[in-house]
C-alpha cells in the first residue's frame, strides 16, 4: 500500500465527490458524514506516511506513471507524467492540509444551504490542494493549481457574505492572472527542456526535477541558461523567473498584489476562510520554493534582493494595514499578508536557516491563521458583526473565547513558546547572515523587518484592548445576550489548533528534522547554482 499512499490521499476525496454526485440532495447529513469519513481516512494515510517517512532521504513515496505521451513529429514528443512524491518541503504542508481540511469540515457543520454542492466542492478542493503539494510534474501541478480556483470561486460566490460577488470575481481574476503568468513560463520551459533519460528522440518533459537541472536545457532554446537570451532589459530566464514570481506572489499574497485577500476573506464563510488562509496562500510560497527558485536559481540569485525587499515591504505594509483595519477578519487577513512576507524574506536569504524558517512559517501560519479565522467566525456567527469598534469588554462575557483569542493573538505576534516564534527567528537569522555567505540580502533588510514584530504586537494588543478589555459594551444591531461563550463544537475545533501551535513552538525538533535536510539542500543548491550560472556567459 505504501507506494500508493499519495494516490490514496489524493483520490479518496475525488471518489467521494463522485459518489456524492449520485446521492439525493435531500439527505444532508450523508454529505457531512462522507466528508468526515474522507478526512478520517486521509488522517490514517497521513499517519502511515509519517511513520514511514525517512528524514534526509530526499523525495519519497514517489509514484511515476506515464500520463500523456503525444508524438508531435518534428516537435518531438510531449510527455507529461503522473509524478507525485513528498520531501521536506511538501510533507509538512501535506500534513497541514490534511489537518486543516479536517478542521474545516467540522467548521462547516453549520452550513445549511445547498449542502450537497458545498461538500462536493469541498472534496474537490481537498484533492486539488493535496495534489498541488505533491505533484512533481509541472503540467500535473498546474492542473491541480487551476482546479483549486473553481471550487474556491463558487464556495465564496455562493456561500459568502453580502459582497461575495465582488470578492469572488476579484479573487478569480487575480489568481487567474497569476495562473496565466505561470502558464507562459510552463510553455517556455516545456519547449526548452528535454528528458535526459531518453536518447535519440527529443522528448519534452514537464518533470520539475529535470527542469531544475541546468544541463537538461536544450542548447539555444529560449530558456537555455548558457545562452542568456536578452529580451529588453532582462534575460529570458530573468523574465521567466519574474513571471513565476509574480504568479505565485499573487497567491502568497505579496504587496502590492494582495488586495484580493482581505475582500475574499471578509466575504468567505468561516471554513473557506480557514482553508484560504491556512492552505491556499501556502501554495504561493510552495510554488516559489518548488518551481521558481530551483529552476531559475541564477535569476533568483540575481533578484534575491528584490524578493527579500518585497518580503520586508509585505511585512510592514501588511502590518500597518492591519492596524488600520476596522473589521476583525480584515485585520487577520492583513496580518496574513504580513506573515507571509517572512516566507519571501526567508527564501530569498539562500541560507538553510532562512529556508527552514520560511517552510516553518508556512506550516505555523497555517495553524495560527486557521485558529484566528475560526475565532473571527465564532463572533460573526453570534452577531453577524465583526466591526472592532462595536465591541468592548468581551473578556468578562466570553472568558473561554478570550483565552483562545489570547493564545491565537500572541502566537501570531510571535511570542516564544508558540510555533510562529521559531519560524520568524529562523528567518531573521538566515536573512541577516545571507550577506556574509555571499547571498543576495543586505543586512539592513533583516533589521528593518524587525519593525514587523513591533507592529504585530501593536495591532493585536490594540485589538485586545478595544474589543476584549474595558467595560462590557456593544454597539450595532445585536444585544449582549447573543454573546454566548464557546459551544462544545467550537471548543473542540479550537483546542487541537491551540495545542498544535504550542507543541510546535516548544518542540520544534520533530518538524525541523523533516525540514532540515531539504532546507540545507535547497539553500546550497540555489546559492551554488545561482552563482555559477550567473558567472557563465
Amino acid at each position: 500500500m505504501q507506494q500508493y499512499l499519495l494516490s490514496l490521499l489524493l483520490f479518496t476525496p475525488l471518489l467521494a465527490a463522485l459518489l456524492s454526485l449520485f446521492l439525493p440532495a435531500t439527505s444532508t447529513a450523508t454529505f457531512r458524514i462522507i466528508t468526515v469519513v474522507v478526512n478520517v481516512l486521509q488522517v490514517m494515510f497521513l499517519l502511515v506516511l509519517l511513520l514511514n517517512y525517512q528524514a534526509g532521504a530526499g523525495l519519497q513515496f514517489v509514484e511515476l506513471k506515464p500520463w500523456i505521451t503525444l508524438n508531435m513529429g518534428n516537435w518531438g514528443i510531449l510527455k507529461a507524467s503522473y509524478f507525485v512524491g513528498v520531501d521536506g518541503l511538501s510533507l509538512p504542508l501535506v500534513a497541514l492540509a490534511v489537518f486543516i481540511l479536517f478542521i474545516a469540515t467540522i467548521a462547516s457543520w453549520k452550513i445549511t444551504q445547498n449542502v450537497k454542492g458545498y461538500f462536493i466542492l469541498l472534496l474537490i478542493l481537498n484533492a486539488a490542494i493535496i495534489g498541488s503539494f505533491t505533484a512533481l510534474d509541472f503540467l500535473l501541478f498546474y492542473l491541480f493549481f487551476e482546479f483549486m480556483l473553481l471550487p474556491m470561486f463558487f464556495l465564496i460566490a455562493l456561500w459568502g457574505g453580502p459582497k461575495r460577488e465582488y470578492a469572488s470575481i476579484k479573487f478569480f481574476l487575480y489568481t487567474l492572472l497569476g495562473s496565466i503568468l505561470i502558464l507562459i513560463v510552463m510553455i517556455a520551459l516545456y519547449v526548452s527542456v528535454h528528458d535526459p533519460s531518453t536518447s535519440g528522440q527529443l522528448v519534452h518533459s514537464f518533470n520539475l526535477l529535470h527542469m531544475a537541472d541546468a544541463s537538461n536545457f536544450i542548447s539555444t532554446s529560449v530558456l537555455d541558461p548558457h545562452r542568456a537570451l536578452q529580451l529588453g532589459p532582462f534575460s529570458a530566464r530573468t523574465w521567466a523567473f519574474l513571471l513565476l514570481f509574480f504568479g505565485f506572489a499573487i497567491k502568497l499574497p505579496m504587496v502590492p498584489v494582495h488586495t484580493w485577500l482581505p475582500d475574499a476573506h471578509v466575504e468567505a464563510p468561516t471554513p473557506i476562510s480557514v482553508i484560504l488562509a491556512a492552505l491556499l496562500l501556502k501554495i504561493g510560497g510552495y510554488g516559489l520554493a518548488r518551481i521558481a527558485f530551483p529552476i531559475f536559481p541564477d535569476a533568483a540569485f540575481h533578484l534575491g534582493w528584490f524578493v527579500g525587499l518585497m518580503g520586508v515591504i509585505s511585512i510592514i505594509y501588511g502590518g500597518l494595514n492591519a492596524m488600520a483595519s476596522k473589521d476583525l477578519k480584515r485585520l487577520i487577513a492583513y496580518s496574513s499578508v504580513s506573515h507571509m512576507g517572512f516566507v519571501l524574506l526567508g527564501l530569498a536569504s539562500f541560507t538553510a536557516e532562512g529556508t527552514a524558517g520560511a517552510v516553518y512559517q508556512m506550516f505555523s501560519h497555517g495553524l495560527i491563521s486557521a485558529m484566528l479565522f475560526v475565532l473571527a467566525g465564532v463572533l460573526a456567527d453570534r452577531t453577524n458583526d465583526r466591526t472592532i469598534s462595536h465591541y468592548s469588554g468581551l473578556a468578562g462575557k466570553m472568558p473561554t473565547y478570550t483565552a483562545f483569542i489570547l493564545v491565537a493573538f500572541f502566537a501570531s505576534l510571535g511570542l516564544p513558546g508558540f510555533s510562529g516564534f521559531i519560524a520568524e527567528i529562523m528567518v531573521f537569522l538566515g536573512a541577516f547572515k545571507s550577506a556574509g555567505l555571499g547571498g543576495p540580502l543586505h543586512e539592513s533588510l533583516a533589521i528593518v523587518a524587525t519593525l514587523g514584530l513591533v507592529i504585530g504586537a501593536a495591532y493585536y494588543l490594540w485589538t485586545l484592548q478595544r474589543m476584549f478589555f474595558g467595560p462590557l459594551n456593544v454597539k450595532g444591531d445585536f444585544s449582549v445576550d447573543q454573546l454566548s461563550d464557546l459551544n462544545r463544537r467550537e471548543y473542540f475545533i479550537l483546542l487541537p489548533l491551540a495545542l498544535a501551535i504550542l507543541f510546535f513552538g516548544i518542540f520544534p525538533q520533530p518538524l525541523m528534522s523533516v525540514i532540515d535536510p531539504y532546507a540545507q539542500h535547497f539553500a546550497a543548491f540555489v546559492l551554488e547554482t545561482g552563482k555559477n550560472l550567473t558567472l557563465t556567459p
Partner: protein
Amino acid sequence: MDAIHTYSFLFHFCLVAALAFPLLSFVLSFYISEKYSWITSVLASFLLLLGTLASAVVLYQAWNHPPFAYRLEWFSLAGYSFSAGVYINNISALMLFIVTGVSFLVHLYSVGYMAGDAGIQRYFAMLGFFTFAMQGIVVSGNLLMTFVFWELVGFSSYMLIGHWHEIPAAAEASKRAFIINRVGDAGFLVGLMIVWAHGHSFDIAALQHMPVDPTWMTLASLGIFCGIVGKSAQFPLFTWLPDAMVGPTPVSALIHAATMVAAGVFLLARVHFLFTVPALHIVAVVGCITALLGAVSALAQHDIKKILAYSTLSQLGLMVVALGAGSPQAALLHLFTHAFFKACLFLAAGAVIHSLHQAQHQSHVHFDVQDIRNLGGLEKKLPFTFLIFVISGSALAGLPLTSGFLSKDAILTALVQWHGEGFSWKLLILAAVALVSFLTVVYTFRMIWKIFKGSETATAQLHISEPPAVMRAPMAVLAGVSLWIWFSWNPFNFYGWMYTNIGEAKPFHSGMVSIASAIWVILALGVAYVTRQVTVGSPLLLNAFYFDRLLKQFVEKPILQLAALTHHADKKWIDGFLHATAYAQLIVAHLTGWFDRAIVDGLVDGVAGAAKGLGSFTRSFQGGKIQLYIFWATFAIIIFIIWTLL
C-alpha cells in the same frame, strides 16, 4: 581550566524543582474549580515556598564552586545546534534564590491582598508563570533561551499589569508595557542576529571566545542593550514603568524588585564581556540620564506608587551606570539589595492602600488613597507599616546601616575608580550620580513624612487597622533583609561575602568614599527635613518631562497616520487601479461589441438584406398569374433580341 566538580543528584533535582514549582503553580491554577478559588492562592504560595527551598539548596551547593553548565539540544538545523543551556554560577544561583524568594513573599502577601478578587486564579497563575519566566532568564546559559524567557516575562507582565482588565487605564498600560518592551526586543533580536552571523552559537560561555570585529561587536552589544533599555525601563523606553502602576500592588512589587526590570540589569551583567568600550560609554550615559530623570520626576509625584516607580527608574539607572563604568558586581550588589528593599517598599505601600481601602469600604468615604496629599499622620494607626516603611525607605535612601548604603557605596566607588584622574565627562556622570543619591533621600523622606507624620486629613474619620498577618510577615522579612548585615559584616564596607564573590573583585576600596557618602546622605536628610513642606508643583516633572506625550505625538501618531495611508493606498490606489483596468476592459468590450453589431453584423445583415430584397423581388415575378408570366416572357424575349442584335 576549572577543577572538575561533580554536582550531586540533589543539586540537579533541586534545580529542576526550583523551576518546576512555579510552573506547576501556573498549570494547577487552571484545574481548581472556580468555587474554591481561594485554594489557588494557598497552593501557589506553598509551591513557591518549596521552590524557594529548592533554590536555597541550589545556592548552597553552587556557591563558590565551579560553574555548572548543562546543554540540552532544543533543535538542530544545518549542523548547528540550538540548545537550551543552563549555566549556574554564584551570580545566577544567588539571583535564582532571590527571585524565587521574593516571589514567594509576594505570593504570600497576595493571599491577603487579593482575597476576594474575581480573577484570583488568573492572578496566581500568571504570578507563577512570571516567576518561572524570570527564573528562566536567570539560569539560562544561552542567549536564545534568554530571549525566549525575556519575551515570556514581557507576556506575563502584560497579563499582570492588565489584571483588572475592565479598567481602561489598566488595559492601556499593559498594552503600552508590552509594545515598548517589544521595541527593545526588536533591538535585542538584531543583536542576536549579529551574534549568530558571526559566531553561530548563542551559548554565552562560547561567545566569550568569539572572534568578531569591533564594529559588529559594538553593534551587537548595543542591540542587546536595546532589549535591556526596554525591559529595565531606561531612557527613552521608560514610560511604561510608571504607567504599569495601575496593576495590583504586589505585582508592582514583583516587577520592580526581582523580576522584569531586574532582568535587564542581570543580563547586562551576564553578557558584559560582549560590550566594547564605546558601547559601555553609551550604556553609562543612558543609565545616567535615566537615573537623573527618575530622581527629579519622583520629587514631584504625589501618588505613592508613582513615587516608588520613578525611584525604581532612578535606581535602575544607577545600576546601568555602574555597568557602563565596567563594574558589574557593583550593579549586581545594588540589584540584589534593591530587590529586597524595593519589594518591601511596595508591599508597605500596598499595606497602606489595602488598609485604607478596607476602611473606605466600611465607611463609604471616597478619596484617592494613593494620593499622599490626602494622607498624613498614619503613624499611629499603622505603626507596623510605618516601621517597615522607615527601614526600607532608609535602605532606598542609602542611609548607613542599611543594605542600600553598601550597594550605593559600591557604585560610587566604582565610578570614582572609573573616572580616574583629571577632568573628563566621566566626572559629570559621577556628579550626576551623587546628585541622584541626594535626591533619593529627599523624595523618600518626603514620602514617608507625608504619609505618616503631620495630622490626618481625609483619613481622620476612618477606622483603619493594620493588614492581616499573612501580609505583615512578608513585609517584616523583607525589611529584615534590607539591613546591612546580610551583605557584609561591616556596615561601612561593601566588601562582604557577596560582593567579593560575584565577580572579579577589584582591589580598590576607599574608606573616603564611604565616609563622604555617609556625610552626603546625612546632609541630604537634613535638607529633606528642612524642605519637607515645600511641594514641587512642576507639571513638567510630574509628567516626567512629558515624555509619553512626546512619544504619542511623534511616534504613535505618525505610525497611525501611516497605517491610515496604507489603508487608503489599498483602497484607492491598488484597488482603484484594478477597477480602472476593469472599466477599461469593459469599455473595450463595449466597443468591440458595438463593432460586432454595427460593422460585422451590419455587413452580414446587409448581405442578407440584399439577398432578401433580391429574393422578394424575384419572388414577385411568380405571382401565379398566367398573364404576368406571358408579360415577363415577352419582356425577356424582347430584351434577349435587343441584346443579340446589338
